[in-house]
């Protein structure tokens, strides 16, 4: 049984937490739809992506249990996301340079 408790001592959330996260996700969806009608100019896309990122953070930490996983998991996911962002940033640096010339 020691084995089992070691494997499963983490990742225990109450039902209530999941419902709260679900409510937050639905509310954020409502906000992103409502806000889409308003034109913020350049920051319109940024607003939508920020809301999507908040939703992703909630899913990653609670639904995917990252909050209760060991630090190794969080570092892994952090590094993976960082490299994805780097590839986006580098590509756009390169691309805007090409377009300008």
């Amino acid at each position, binding site marked *: 049984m020691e084995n089992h408790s070691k*494997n*499963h001592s983490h990742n225990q959330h109450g039902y209530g937490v*999941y419902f709260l996260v679900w409510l937050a996700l*639905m509310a954020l969806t409502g906000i992103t*739809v409502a806000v*889409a009608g308003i034109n913020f100019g350049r920051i319109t896309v940024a607003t*939508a992506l920020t809301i999507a990122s908040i939703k*992703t953070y909630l899913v990653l930490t609670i639904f995917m249990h990252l909050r209760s996983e060991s630090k190794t998991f969080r570092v*892994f996911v952090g590094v993976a996301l960082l490299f*994805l962002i780097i590839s986006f940033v580098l590509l756009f640096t390169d691309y805007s340079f090409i377009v300008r010339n």
Partner: protein
Amino acid sequence: MSIQHTAAAHIHRDDVASRMGMWLFLFTELLLFGGMFILYSVYRFTHPQDFHLAAKELNTVIGTFNTAILLTSSLTMALSIAAIQRRQKTLSIIFQLITILLAFGFMVNKYFEWGAKFHHGIYPGSDTLLSKPSGEILFFGLYYVMTGLHGLHVIIGVVIIAFMTVFTLRDVITHDNYVKLEAAGLYWHLVDIIWIFLFPLFYLIT
């Protein structure tokens, strides 16, 4: 973490490593979809006006509805794991079945959505679509490829969760051995996350 020593009679298993393996697989999925999001952002950058016009053709109501369905299915998936942890086998199976049902609902909506597009002659290679400006052709090309690939993931997810339901019924997945269900859950939540980004980028362009 030498598990064999403490429980020699038990079959060796390492759930942390299993979950880690699943996460590594999810990172490859991240690259697959990441590449497409890069493609999308470059074309949107070069054809902002066409993307704006083309996005108006998409049905925001169906898109929002599908987002709600997928978020709810993510909830029921998480709840099925919480239930099995509490030895509530039947409840866990019910939550898994609801997840599958919601996934079917998502795909049915997708069917009607794509069907309406096809009816209006908007599908890859159609004359109607090819007569449009190049930016709109790119938008719909990306729309079909990205939501199509996402839809394929939903179908694969349904198959995986169906297997998990059978495993739970046969007590392969139990309250102290449910890492398979957790891995299926991780996959399902990733599918949800991808939709979280697809939805505003395709349906909500102002």
